[in-house]
């Protein structure tokens, strides 16, 4: 019998932030410019078993899952752009959208399978349909999307070879129909991943379950629009630019709101790799959005802006993923909010009102 290969197989698990595990009382280290001092956890409020994590951090592999989140968003929003571009005579945007929708779906599938610890059993994902399992629902979203997107991209690829021959019309109709099918499923592919990660016991993900779908939708729009800027001609790229800029703005706003609403749970966004990634993400999104507005009509500026927007979108996914790992490894993230919940419930019972534990309330401040 071989030993457990945990340490080598699951690098994320080892990356316990020992600063996070210790009780924090550094009140001067306020988050976000002096507003957050009272959000720090006083040492006395928090007991644990030798500072060990209480829940298990996800064993999902790091780049696989963040890249899957990114590719799902990229492919999902690109499929809508492609379908609309087809209807409004923007051939280069249509071609770009169809190809990247297929590429994203296939790449995402590969990453999803590679992330499994028993990849040969990937078809077990389609063994049942379980609405209680976001991963099951996601598998059933990804499968038809990949089929539609591949059909649309295939039609796009074959069209030049059949031009003027028999079957060209049938191919175009089939490709357009598949493109519409992909566009209908695409947005769901972009946002279901927010449910995937927030429907866990990881505090920073779970308590952001109202923000993450919007964040991921904005991120998807920035990625899809960004790719449109990279690949489509100046004649065709205006809708892509609009979508990308709107996505970047939504993403920047909701990210700020999310970290405010999370209270002490947002501290994982304020340290370590998650902080670096989120800062880089915001910078890329801001630069890309400004570039898209100002330089859309220059081919090179549009392409650079699009790249920046795509990078910003991807960095967001990596940052959110890292923050979740750090949150799961921090016993304070479990104990302090749950203690606060108990305290509020007891207060409510004494006051004769309804216990307020239906909704998460940040531990302090806000």
């Amino acid at each position: 019998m071989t030993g457990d290969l945990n340490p080598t197989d699951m690098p994320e698990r080892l990356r316990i932030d020992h600063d996070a595990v210790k009780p924090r009382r550094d009140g001067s280290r306020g988050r976000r410019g002096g507003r957050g001092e009272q959000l720090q956890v006083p040492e006395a409020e928090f007991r644990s078993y030798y500072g060990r994590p209480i829940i298990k951090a996800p064993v999902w592999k790091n780049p696989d899952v963040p890249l899957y989140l990114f590719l799902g968003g990229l492919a999902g929003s690109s499929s809508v752009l492609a379908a609309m571009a087809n209807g409004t005579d923007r051939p280069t945007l249509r071609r770009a959208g169809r190809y990247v929708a297929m590429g994203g779906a296939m790449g995402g599938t590969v990453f999803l399978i590679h992330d499994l610890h028993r990849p040969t059993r990937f078809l077990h994902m389609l063994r049942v349909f379980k609405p209680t399992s976001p991963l099951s629902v996601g598998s059933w979203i990804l499968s038809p999307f990949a089929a539609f997107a591949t059909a649309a991209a295939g039609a796009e690829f074959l069209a030049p070879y059949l031009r003027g021959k028999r079957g060209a019309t049938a191919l175009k109709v089939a490709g357009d129909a598949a493109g519409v099918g992909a566009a209908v499923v695409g947005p769901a592919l972009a946002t279901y991943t927010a449910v995937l990660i927030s429907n866990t016991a990881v505090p920073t993900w779970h308590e952001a379950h109202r923000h993450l779908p919007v964040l991921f939708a904005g991120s998807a729009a920035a990625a899809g629009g960004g790719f449109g800027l990279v690949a489509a001609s100046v004649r065709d790229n205006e809708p892509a630019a609009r979508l990308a800029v709107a996505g970047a703005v939504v993403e920047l706003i909701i990210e700020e709101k999310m970290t405010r609403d999370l209270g002490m749970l947002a501290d994982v966004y304020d340290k370590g790799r998650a902080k670096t990634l989120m800062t880089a993400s915001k910078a890329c999104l801001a630069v890309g959005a400004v570039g898209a507005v100002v330089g859309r009509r220059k081919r090179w500026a549009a392409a650079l802006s699009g790249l920046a927007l795509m990078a910003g979108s991807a960095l967001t996914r990596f940052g959110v993923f890292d923050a979740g790992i750090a949150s799961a490894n921090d016993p304070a993230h479990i104990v302090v909010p749950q203690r606060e919940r108990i305290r509020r419930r007891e207060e409510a019972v004494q006051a004769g009102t309804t216990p307020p534990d239906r909704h998460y309330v940040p531990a302090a401040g806000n």
Partner: protein
Amino acid sequence: MTNVFDAFSGTANSLYGELPDPAADAGFDPSHPKRVGFFTDTSVCIGCKACEVACKEWNLVPDDGTDASDLYRLTGMSYDNTGDLGASTWRHVAFIEDVRPHGSATTEHGGGTPPAEPTTGHIPSGLPALGGGALPKAPRDAATPPPGGGTVDLLTLLPDAGAHGQQTPDDERDVRWLMASDVCKHCTHAGCLDNCPTGALFRTEFGTVVVQDDICNGCGYCVPSCPYGVIDVRGSDGGAHKCTLCYDRLGSGLEPACAKACPTKSIQFGDLDELQAAADARLAELHDRGVNEARLYGRDENDGVGGDGAFFLLLDEPEVYGLPPDPIVTTRDLPEMWRNAALTAVGLGVAAVAAFWKGGRR
């Protein structure tokens, strides 16, 4: 069997709330066996780890492999060198050395009981106490014979901050040992089960939660879904594993291996309703004896996971044992999450369509 629409509309408590019979909710007909579980009474746990060993032996669970910080895998956490529950640890005995300076007890821990005998501060009189407070003051000199004659207790001569590594002298310290055998809670609302995309995790006719190893594809979604951090993926075979409540033994009318091996009946197995009655009686008995810090954990059927199939009697806050103080199953918010995701998906689609509005072309 509860259908999906009832579960998501909230007319059936399949995702959250009180659910008296989870096996029936999972589709078993009403003639299924009664729900079984564990009651782990930590007030009589002696930390022998027989449960850990019996579990490994019966279930052929391999070496843990984790926490290999050194050759002997010593964690530095008292006598706990197991660490935590995981894919290859289905029973885990926690050890807490609760050391306080003598007389530093608060009413919270002393329970307000009048000390009838020389008690040891926060240690309740109803429980056997360990520690120097109850010992007679021995002369700290090997040459002087002890008051009652006999041999000199060499332990009392150890340097105060020496072998025990404590800052306070032995006879001025109170030590309370907390030992608790942790296990999968077999929740009424099991996040691992509901989140499993393959159906590998299932509810048994006994109301317990078990992984089918031949179905599990190692996606790992159950791992962060558990509010207690119980289930994990095993590196050597890639599958998720956890306590089965000895499903194979239950089918043959045997009790689980850990309960069979427990020498103090700290781990009790039986029908859940009988265990709950026994636990309530035990709690009342301890409270009568002045052990006011005794509490049941996972017993409440109205808690965030609908009550545990394996519940505990603890002598301190749950987080001291590494347990979450107020766990809530993640699927409580799932209907709202799906609604939010669907709305934002529509919003994304509309935004992408609206981006073509009056597309100025050039």
